Structure formats: structure tokens, C-alpha cells
């Protein structure tokens, strides 16, 4: 088995490409941008103020806001791709979830294993009419959190999943 590594023509990322993924709402890009950028922006402003005050004596202090600004821009630039990488798929027996560009993760949760389906809404997501759906199994490592779903779709999905989980309920 290990002696003949299969030659793979695809690029080396994880991609069960055959699946047509359900994407999250494009509005979530804005929500993610705002919630990510807000904290970072405060840090940039704070460091800029301190640089303005102490700048004459310590010119090196300007490196701080500059550095944070670069990080902010990189994060913001990557956000659309990151959000587009989030997807889920309802298969016959399980729910498939993927996210991440640099660190890719793909999870399959059988319907019968779901112990809890949870909808949460942060303030920014609520303003945009979005909600996030969390699936809980007996394993803490499962960690499936589908963000950026329109509220009515999230509720529909939750009800659907609860019905599915109930009909296929297994023990722990």
C-alpha cells in the first residue's frame, strides 16, 4: 500500500469536488469583515494616537500601527475567500461541513448522532438578518458551526435536522 503512492493530478488541497455545496449568505462577508475589522481598527487607532503623541521622541513607534494595519488589510482581503470556503451539504445519512482555505477542515456528522441543534445570533449578524447554527454531538471535537445563514433558512434547517435526528436516533 505505502510502496506505491497514488499519483494525484489534482492540486494538493482537500476537495471532494463532486459535491455541490450549500454556500452561506454573501452578506456574511460583510458581517465577518465588520466583526473582524472592528477590534483591529480600535487597536490601530490606539497605537496611532500613541505614535502621534510620542512620535517626535520615538519614531520607531510608528511601526506598531503600520504593522497592525497590514494585518488588518490582509485579514480583510482574505475574508471573502474564507467565507466562500464555508459550505455544508445534507447527504442521505449525514451532514457534511467544510471550511478554511489555509487550514482546511471537512466534517461529517451522522444525523443520528446529533444531540443538540442550536441557533445563536450576535448583534452584527442580527442587524444583517443572519444567524449561526451549531451542531453538538457527544464528542466535543465535532465542533460544527455553520455561520451566515439567513434566519428563516437557519430555522428551517434546524427543524429539518431535529426531525432527521429524531428519526435516526441512536444511543451514545
Amino acid at each position, binding site marked *: 500500500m505505502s510502496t506505491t503512492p497514488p499519483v494525484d493530478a489534482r492540486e494538493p488541497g482537500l476537495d471532494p469536488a463532486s459535491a455541490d455545496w450549500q454556500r452561506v449568505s454573501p452578506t456574511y462577508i460583510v458581517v465577518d469583515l465588520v466583526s473582524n475589522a472592528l477590534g483591529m481598527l480600535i487597536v490601530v487607532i490606539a497605537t496611532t494616537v500613541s505614535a502621534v503623541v510620542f512620535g517626535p521622541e520615538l519614531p520607531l513607534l510608528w511601526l506598531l500601527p503600520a504593522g497592525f494595519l497590514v494585518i488588518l488589510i490582509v485579514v480583510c482581503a482574505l475574508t471573502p475567500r474564507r467565507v466562500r470556503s464555508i459550505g455544508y451539504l445534507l447527504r442521505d445519512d449525514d451532514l457534511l461541513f467544510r471550511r478554511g482555505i489555509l487550514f482546511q477542515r471537512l466534517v461529517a456528522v451522522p444525523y443520528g448522532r446529533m444531540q443538540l441543534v442550536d441557533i445563536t445570533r450576535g448583534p452584527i449578524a442580527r442587524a444583517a438578518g443572519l444567524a449561526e447554527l451549531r451542531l453538538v454531538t457527544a464528542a466535543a471535537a465535532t465542533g460544527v458551526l455553520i455561520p451566515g445563514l439567513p434566519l428563516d433558512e437557519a430555522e428551517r434547517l434546524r427543524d429539518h435536522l431535529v426531525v432527521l435526528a429524531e428519526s435516526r436516533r441512536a444511543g*451514545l
Partner: protein
Amino acid sequence: MSDPTPDALEPRPDGGPRADAFIDGQWHRLHPATPFLRGGLGVVAVAAVIVANLREQLLRFLFPENFCDADREICFPDDPLVELANSGNLVLVLLAAAAILVVVVGAFWLSWRMHAFRITDDVLEVKSGILFRTHRQGRLDRIQGINVTRPLLARIFGAARLEVTVAGQDANIQLAYLGGATADALRREVLRLASGARAVPSAEATAAAVASGSTSLIDRRIGELTAPELDPDLAAPASVVRMSPGRLVASTLLSGALIWLLAPIVAVAIVLGSTSAGADVWVAAPVLVVSVLPAAIGAVSFMVNRVVKSLRFSIAATPDGIRVGYGLLSTTNETLPPGRVHSISVSQSLFWRPFDWWEVKVNRAGQSTSQGASGRQNTTILPVGTRDDAFRVLELIVPALEHDELRALVSEGLGRGAADDGYTSSPRRAAVLRWFSWRRNGFALSEAAVLLRRGAIWRELVIIPAARVQSTSVRQGPLLRSLALASVHVHTVAGPVSTQIGALDRGRAEQLFQDAARVSVRAGVADRSDHWGSPDIAEESPS
């Protein structure tokens, strides 16, 4: 705040409690010695200190002619107790002490009165507390294990602590303390109810329980102290593993603790040897002792602990699951119903390899919190055993092991790893990440279980019953992607066993991910172990 109905169920000298005495849906109370046992050694220690300190005073009080020291004419005038005795207020003080004693005893008695449990068909309920009332319910079909613990002090009084492990964090139900025979009967009843079997236990079982109680109280106490398994109803299931003391001591010496003991000694010896001080034994010896002593004490106490606890280790199959027993003076006896083990690790350190010794650990949904007797997490199912021992233990946990295909896979999983042994191993390019173990690092899949094989120096085989898989994930970071590798995580409940396998070929990893998800769904639907004794599956249930 309903008053629990009094009940004559507690250990009666005339006979053991009847098997069905507890499932009448009534409230029952715990062993009368409970408050004392829960206070435990603390009470004994305090009493001992008081007696030791007051002994002189009491003697003098009882024998006034010896009140003063005869030789030196000293009457201890500064001692408050003596002062008190002289001043004539002693009666008042004694009265006050008696009053406090009465209040304390009364409080103990009240807390015992308020602490009650009952078993209905579906739940086990416990309520306790005087000011702050607690009421806890556990669903019987979610029981993950039942633990009967007998700390030394409680054993002397013939009492035992029963802990019902329920899935979830801190969701356990403790009944401390019960009479020894009561605890056994209760365990039997709870397991029977949980199994889904509704038939009352056979007549001879009850008869045996009564017969065992027909001897005198003293005889029974001695019998309980010496018997390894207090289970009169089940013809004491023989342990499938013999724990020989020699192997236990040797394996403990060869475990990681030895390194912690030897490393500082070697380090200090090297340092001393390289300096001129090393030449002088009288300088070297104290330095060596001082620097090594703390580590040595820690390592030795760990080893002694481990040996003592595992000396009377036993593991056996009962109709209601696996029973694991530990302990020499304080004993623990845990029953794991079928299908309650979520993943299994069979591991071997480098030092154990010449002897082919293995350790078996498991992940379980409910963690028993009782540290009293076992002192360690009850996740080690086999502390040390030969390959055959490990197989016998695995057979108990994984009934599917009777199929030759899975047995061959497990057997290969314990080996060093070859190219065509049924395992899909990491490709050669993974050697960058798995220097020594890339040939061994791999997985195999059967219909009943997912097997992960890891480690070359510290060999480990992880078996995850397919019916217990919660979800599956495949992951890839930038480093793995540059090598076209990926890692797979088969999610089970948390525990000491890691169910992750890294550095697999990307395509193989995706295949494992898909297959494991498919197998686990199928096995999850077919699995009936949550009611392992219900009549329609009684024939297939593992025994």
C-alpha cells in the same frame, strides 16, 4: 420535602436484602454509618488528637491523688484545663461540650434522614441536604457504568459506595454509603432495569443471596473482607487475566517513572564526575542525595501506588457487561455495560517490547470521579498484560473480534507494520513528519471498527467501534498540503485515547473519511446495545 418512608432494608443479620427490595419505587435510606464514613478518617484523626492531648488531663481528673507531679510538686498551673478543673466550672463546660455533641450528632442523623434514593423503571433518583436540598435524577438507559467502591474504613464497617456513571460532565450519581450486600443487590437491579430485560432474576440467585447472609455477622464481615468479589448472585465470574506480581512490579519499573528516577541520578553523576568534587565521595554523596531525593520520592510513591492498586486486578465478563476490579485494601469494582466503551487504545512502550507487554485504555462517555479507592481515572482496563491477555480483554470489549478478519487486523496492528498487512500506511514522503513511524502509521477499516495504528517507539493501536463514532473529520494545514498529506480525526467522546491519525496520503485520507462516515452510520443504526438485555436481542448480546 416528603418524609422518606422508613424501611428495613439495611443490612440485617438474619439475611441479605432481597433482590427486588429496591425497585418498589419507594424512597430508601443509606447505611446508618454514612455520616461517620463520609467524615471518614478526619473524624477518627480529630478524635485521636483530642484523646491524645487530653489523656493526661483525663487521668489526673479521674485520679486526683496523682494530680500534681509527685516528684517536682508542679501542678501545671498554666494549663487552662487544669485551671478550669480547679475553678469548679468543669460541670458547666462538660455540659456545653455534651450539648455540642448532641447537636453534631443530631445534624448527622438529620442529614442521614434526609438523604434518600429510589429507583423507578426509568430513573434513579437521589435527594439530600438539610438546608440546601439537592434532587438528582439519572436515566437508567443512559448509564455508562456502575462502580462499587469500598474504602478501607468503609470495608471494616461492611459498607460500600455505589456510583452510577451517567453520560455527561459531572452527571454521576453517588450513593455513599450502602451496606455491602445492599450495594451489590442494587447494582444488579439497576443493571437489570437498564438492560431492558423485565424478567425477575432467577430463583436460585435470590436463594444464594439469602444463603450467604445466613451466617453470623462476624463471619460475613470477615467473608466480605477476604472475598475478592462480593457478588453472591453471580457465580463469581473468573477473571480472564491473571495479574502476576512479578510482571506488575517489573512493568512498573520499566514504565516511564523509571526514567524520572534515573535521569536525575545520571545527570548529577555526570556533573559530579566532570568536576573535581566527584573525586571526594564525602562531597559527592550528599549532593547526589539532596538533588535526587525529591524526584526519587515522587517516582517511588507513584510506582508503589500503581503496584498496590493493580495487585488484585481482575476483569471478567458478566451478563451485564465487563466487570473490572482493582485494589488491595480499598477496592473498586466497576461494571461497564456492553457498548459503553467508545474507543480503545492498546499501547506498548519501548521497554515493554522485549516482554511483549501491553496496556489497554478506553474512552468512556461518563468519567467516574471516585478517586477514593482507585486513585486514578478508571480508564485503564488492563494495567499490563501479555499479548494474549490483551486479546482476551479486547474480546470482552469488542464482541466483533470473534470474526477472523478483525482479529487479524488487530493482530497486525500490534506488529511492527509491513507493506501488505491490511493497513493503509503513510507514504514515504511522510517520513519528514513521522521519522520512525511512517511505515507503521496507518489505518484499517472493517465493518465493525476503525483501527488506527501509530508510533514506532511507543506503539499504539486505537480501536474505535464503528457504532460509537460520533462524527469524522479530515484536515489539512499548509505543511500537510505541501506534502499532499492530510490527517483524519474520528471523533468519539473525550478521554485518554486520542482518535486522530496524521500524515496520511491525501487521497487515502479522503477515502478513510468517506468510508468511516459510511460505516459508522450503518453500525449506528444496527447498534442495539443501549438496551442490551431486551428480549429481542438477547441471543446476540455479548456475554
